[in-house]
């Protein structure tokens, strides 16, 4: 049983029940302190009244001609003083405590007895007892009433023993007379205690409502896992902080803290351990903050800290960021393992870098993302000039996304020809390469050199790549069934696409969706993309070749690759970058490189395509070097579907006139 509880429970209390009990005790303690103060004043007043009564009724006693202070007056001062000062002192040094109110109960009852005696036993003063009990009932503690009643009963009993006639009158001989007197007090107590119980129930209900309200507010404003304020609370708090800072012309810095690769770590250790890890991370971050700082968890692995500054520059914020980086660089024990992680922190200052909470969070977020892009596990302070380009980039990204959604992209096709070996094979079309084109209603054609790098940076290349593959498959199926397609349509694949675990299967699924023969599609992959995750790339290419799809390595010579690894792959075509083709006719070095690339590719069983053929001299040189296929403006520019289809139709008629140079 919880001895401090006002209620005796039969079952072990739940956490919520404990919280309610604690709240009831708190409110009850506040009430008792207030009542104690009232009693202090009441008892001082009673003491004065007792002295006044003694002075009025019996100030002096006489023995013949000798006068002296009446004992009643002396007792009113001294005895009454002891009955008053003891509880008053206790109220001062121990307000609200149980021992204090028990003492008040005892002394109040004895004061009632004194007042009755000083007034000569007048029946009116007996009501002081009942009034005192009623006042004591405000404590809502039935034990206080019992103690008070016991004191009166004992006083009455002892007086009845020593001076029965003074208490019981003429019927003193009757033993139940004492009980009759005390019975009135007990009768009063019953109703007072019932009232106390009722009030206690109301107090408990009020406490319960208070706890429920506090819990709801807490859930609405606090993160359940870490106990930190959440995004909603952060927003309110920042608004208040900005208002205060404006009023007092003060500054603070805002730290946007994002854990690096936390998703992978969470998957690695399991979510329950991940939750424990997050709590530990939050604890470490908090331990690095000043007392007046504010920390909130606003996302899965995102935190925001607000630090008070003494200057417009976020000096203290940067110090805290370094401290957080040091702290989080220490390993975290998770079961039998130890986990290390990094954190990227973006910092901005109020009012220098933002004038409202939205702007502050946005700018600190941008600074944090810049950290992510340049290497992670570091901090960066927002500077407007540094992020001006980001603003433009953000705008371009937004336009790109909109163009994708609006279907502003199309495929153009550039023909690939067999390198001339003899008159019977000259200008023979062996395939086409699909190239992405973006036509903007306002700006016209947007160069791929502009939007492809942006798409790769933003990840939108995945959507563009998927679109290109679907369109190419659909077109290849159509041309194939119409007998127009010689060879295959080559589609470029980005490194991001190749990095997906389901890339090979998604390509096969796309072909099946459009009923495209496998040999009608050729995928072009750069050597750099192959090397990023070679084992994964190898698995994808093996799967795709098993299905019958052809693979070519694009822009060969411009990236970084290991020839030893390339040897492990089974590739169909190697495409020499235009960089080498450009100087093949004039530069001995370029010609030598190309020659060796062609020899190597042939040795490995690959065909070679030379890109960017723009002059006859280049063409002749490449043919002389035994290049297999040629592609470039000299032979044919990228065309829209209608034009390339016309070319294919002409080719299919088995007489393909050589296209004039564009």
């Amino acid at each position, binding site marked *: 049983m919880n001895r401090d509880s006002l209620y005796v429970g039969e079952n072990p209390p739940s956490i919520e029940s404990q919280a309610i009990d604690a709240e009831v005790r708190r409110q009850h303690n506040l009430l008792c302190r207030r009542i104690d103060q009232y009693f202090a004043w009441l008892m001082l007043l009673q003491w004065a009244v007792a002295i006044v009564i003694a002075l009025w009724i019996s100030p002096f*006693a006489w*023995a*013949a001609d000798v006068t002296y202070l009446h*004992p009643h007056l002396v*007792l009113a001062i001294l005895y009454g003083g002891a009955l008053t000062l003891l509880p008053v002192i206790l109220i001062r040094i121990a307000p609200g405590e149980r021992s204090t109110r028990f003492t008040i109960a005892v002394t109040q009852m*004895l004061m009632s007895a004194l007042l009755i005696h000083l007034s*000569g036993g007048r029946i009116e003063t007996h009501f002081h007892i009942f009034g005192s009990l009623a006042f004591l009932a405000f404590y809502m503690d039935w034990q206080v009433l019992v103690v008070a009643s016991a004191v009166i009963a004992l006083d009455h009993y002892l007086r009845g023993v020593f*001076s029965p006639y003074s208490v019981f009158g003429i019927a003193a001989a009757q033993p139940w007379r004492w009980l009759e007197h005390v019975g009135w007090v007990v009768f009063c107590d019953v109703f007072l205690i019932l009232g106390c119980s009722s009030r206690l129930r109301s107090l408990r209900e009020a406490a319960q409502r208070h706890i429920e309200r506090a819990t709801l507010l807490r859930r609405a404003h606090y993160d359940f896992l870490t106990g930190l304020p959440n995004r909603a609370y952060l927003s309110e708090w920042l608004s208040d902080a900005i208002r205060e800072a404006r009023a007092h012309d003060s500054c603070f810095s805002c730290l946007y803290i994002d854990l690096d690769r936390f998703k992978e770590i969470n998957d690695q250790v399991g979510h329950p351990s991940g939750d424990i890890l997050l709590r530990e991370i939050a604890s470490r971050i908090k331990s690095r903050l000043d007392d007046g700082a504010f920390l909130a968890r606003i996302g899965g692995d995102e935190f925001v800290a607000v630090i008070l500054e003494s200057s417009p520059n976020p000096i203290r914020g940067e110090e805290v960021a370094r401290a957080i980086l040091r702290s989080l660089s220490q390993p975290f024990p998770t079961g039998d393992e130890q986990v290390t992680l990094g954190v990227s922190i973006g910092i901005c200052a109020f009012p220098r870098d933002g004038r409202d909470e939205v702007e502050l969070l946005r700018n600190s977020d941008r600074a944090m993302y810049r950290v992510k892009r340049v290497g992670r596990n570091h901090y960066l302070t927002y500077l407007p000039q540094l992020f001006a380009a980001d603003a433009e980039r953000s705008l371009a990204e937004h336009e790109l996304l909109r163009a994708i959604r609006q279907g502003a992209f199309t495929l153009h096709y550039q023909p690939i020809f067999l390198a001339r070996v003899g008159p019977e094979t000259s200008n023979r079309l062996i395939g086409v390469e699909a190239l992405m084109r973006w036509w903007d209603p306002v700006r016209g054609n947007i160069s791929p050199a502009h939007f492809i790098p942006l798409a790769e940076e933003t990840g939108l290349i995945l959507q563009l790549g998927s679109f290109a593959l679907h369109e190419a498959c659909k077109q290849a199926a159509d041309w194939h069934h119409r007998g127009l397609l010689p060879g295959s349509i080559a589609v470029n694949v980005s490194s991001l696409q190749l990095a997906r675990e389901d890339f090979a299967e998604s390509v096969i699924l796309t072909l099946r969706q459009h009923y495209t023969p496998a040999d009608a599609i050729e995928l072009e992959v750069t050597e750099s993309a192959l090397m990023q995750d070679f084992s994964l790339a190898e698995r994808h290419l093996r799967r795709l070749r098993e299905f019958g799809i052809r693979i070519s390595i694009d822009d060969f010579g411009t990236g970084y690759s290991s020839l030893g690894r390339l040897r492990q792959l089974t590739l169909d075509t190697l495409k020499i970058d235009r960089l080498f083709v450009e100087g093949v006719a004039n530069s001995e070095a370029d010609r030598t490189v190309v020659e060796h690339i062609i020899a190597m590719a042939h040795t490995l069983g690959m065909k070679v395509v030379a890109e960017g053929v723009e002059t006859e001299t280049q063409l002749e040189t490449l043919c002389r070097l035994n290049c297999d296929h040629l592609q470039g403006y000299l032979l044919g520019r990228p065309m829209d579907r209608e034009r390339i289809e016309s070319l294919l139709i002409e080719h299919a008629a088995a007489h393909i006139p050589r296209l004039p140079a564009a």
Partner: protein
Amino acid sequence: MLIRTALLVTAAAAILAGWFQLLRFSRTPGQQAAAPVMLAANVALPVGARQSPLLVFIHPQCSCTQATLQQLDRLLADLPETNRHFPTQLVLAVYSSAATGSRLPFVPAVWLHHPYRILADTNGQLARRFGAATSGEILLYSPARQLLFQGGITPERAQTGDGPGLESLRKALVSGQPTLRYQQSAVFGCPIFHFPIQTRVEQ
């Protein structure tokens, strides 16, 4: 905590001492001496020949005697003349001296609503003669000057209420027979004399 304990112990001791002192003072009777069983003929009292003297000896400054007068007033109200065995005459023998003066500082009529006579007892000579040593002592004699009642009628000092003394006086007034005498009913009040008087007085 130590200070609080010391405070509680000290205060409890003081309160207990005060409570016992209050009780002791309240129930400590005054001195009594045996009154003459027969009232001497040469004792001049403002009482008629057929009236029964009801003497109350009072120290004028004793505040506790107010309770005696209140008790007496209630008793006489309960017992009108027709209910008494003898017609009575209430006489207040008030101690007077050079120090106390001869006037009462209080007006008995505040508590007594029945006819009474005041007799100035210079230096307490009458009180000494009747053995009344404590303020509030009451003596009731029959018209034949026989002592019917001697003692106090308050249960405690300055306390009103039922008690054996009051009841005995009532019986004496109704029956006309002796009920209480010397030391059978305590008197609670201030001493009339500064020093104890003899326990027996001359008849």
